[in-house]
């Protein structure tokens, strides 16, 4: 064996090319191997490959301009959601794969009775990424739906849709009985029994809310596989109408569509 380090005769661009064939976490881990790996890991060749397609168009739709010094910088900036389309949606990327994530703001959703001030109130909250969120005052027919064109999602990717919400202080009868959520794309439909609050008693099995890192709660509505994005709209629906009971206190942040990470 030569005294010289292996790979030290390879040009840095060659190492960058190799790293571009792995994944974002692999590149970040490999950057701690040695200084040649560290400097190769900064290359635009790598991060350009991890950034999703159609990005220039998305950045053009951003509410505030996105400045970045390199493709890697851009990649890491987009891990935090940016507002697009006049603030009606947010966009971010998933850090392990670079796949696209979106959240539809409540103004971009269809909410039954959402336009009637007696039933729903539009408020602004400092914890929200959007300028307005919807607070439920009183309804017995609680239904929310949204859709997103599969074409704008990452291809060959399994996604899940989540209802993102908070339970307000004056919440009443949200957790019982169960609600039903569905996600539909093309011929595929996925249905979930969901509970907005932890179940009080045993009975039907279903999804329960999980706490998110941004302080909101989320509940899984269903999943779908986006092949080439040519199947039209993904339709997502949440319906809490059983028993005809009056409910109040739900605060809706939006519906998030994000890739499933293995």
């Amino acid at each position: 064996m030569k005294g010289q380090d292996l790979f030290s005769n390879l040009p840095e661009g060659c190492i960058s090319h190799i790293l571009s064939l792995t994944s974002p976490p692999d590149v970040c881990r490999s950057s701690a191997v040695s200084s040649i790996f560290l400097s190769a890991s900064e290359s635009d060749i790598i991060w350009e490959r991890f950034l999703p397609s159609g990005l220039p168009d998305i950045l053009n739709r951003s509410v505030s301009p996105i400045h970045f010094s390199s493709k890697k910088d851009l990649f890491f900036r987009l891990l935090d959601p940016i507002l697009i389309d006049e603030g009606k949606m947010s966009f971010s990327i998933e850090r392990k794969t670079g796949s696209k994530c979106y959240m539809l703001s409540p103004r971009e959703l269809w909410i039954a009775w959402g336009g009637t001030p007696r039933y729903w109130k539009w408020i602004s909250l400092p914890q929200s990424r959007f300028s307005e969120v919807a607070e439920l005052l009183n309804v017995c027919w609680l239904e929310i739906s949204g859709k997103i064109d599969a074409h704008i999602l990452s291809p060959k990717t399994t996604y899940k849709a989540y209802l993102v919400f908070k339970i307000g202080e004056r919440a009443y009868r949200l957790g019982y009985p169960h609600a039903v959520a569905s996600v539909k794309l093309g011929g595929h439909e996925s249905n979930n029994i969901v509970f907005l609050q932890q179940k009080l008693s045993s009975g039907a099995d279903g999804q329960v809310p999980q706490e998110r890192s941004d302080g909101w709660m989320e509940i899984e509505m269903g999943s779908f596989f986006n092949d080439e994005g040519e199947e039209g709209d993904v339709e997502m629906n949440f319906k809490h109408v059983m028993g005809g009971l009056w409910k109040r206190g739900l605060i809706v942040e939006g519906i998030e569509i994000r890739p499933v990470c293995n």
Partner: protein
Amino acid sequence: MASTSNSTSSKIITLRSSDGEVFEVEESVALESNLIRRMMEDDCANNIIPLPNVTAPIFYLVIEHCKKHAEMKDNKEKKKELRSQGEELLKSDPHTYSNLMEAVNYLDIKSLMDLTAQWLADFLKGKSPRLIRELLKIKNDFTPEEEAEILERNRWAFD
């Protein structure tokens, strides 16, 4: 003299490795290398083409893989098999891998560059920096402070 071809119909190119061994290679195989292609365009074709950066054992490997690569066209099974051989070579003999990669880079052979790059990429996936260094005999040239800082910055990637 080593011959890598039985065919008499196609043109034969003569090449000499850095350790003086002479190879006769079919033109179609030799032209996979953009370096050799350029040298031939510069009219070195009637002479023996010297390859001062490639030793005979490594050149054998290059030729062997060029042929394998040509055979596997449109054959998914073979492609898979060839791709999976990298892990073994990298584990058992990283030195030869590194020499092969350097030779492929020097000879500028696109198909083999893709293959050997994929080998190392597959090998790196999911491994810790320490394990990569250990298996590939790479020296850690960071100071402890630098290393700690890089690990801290990329902590998310180690979950």
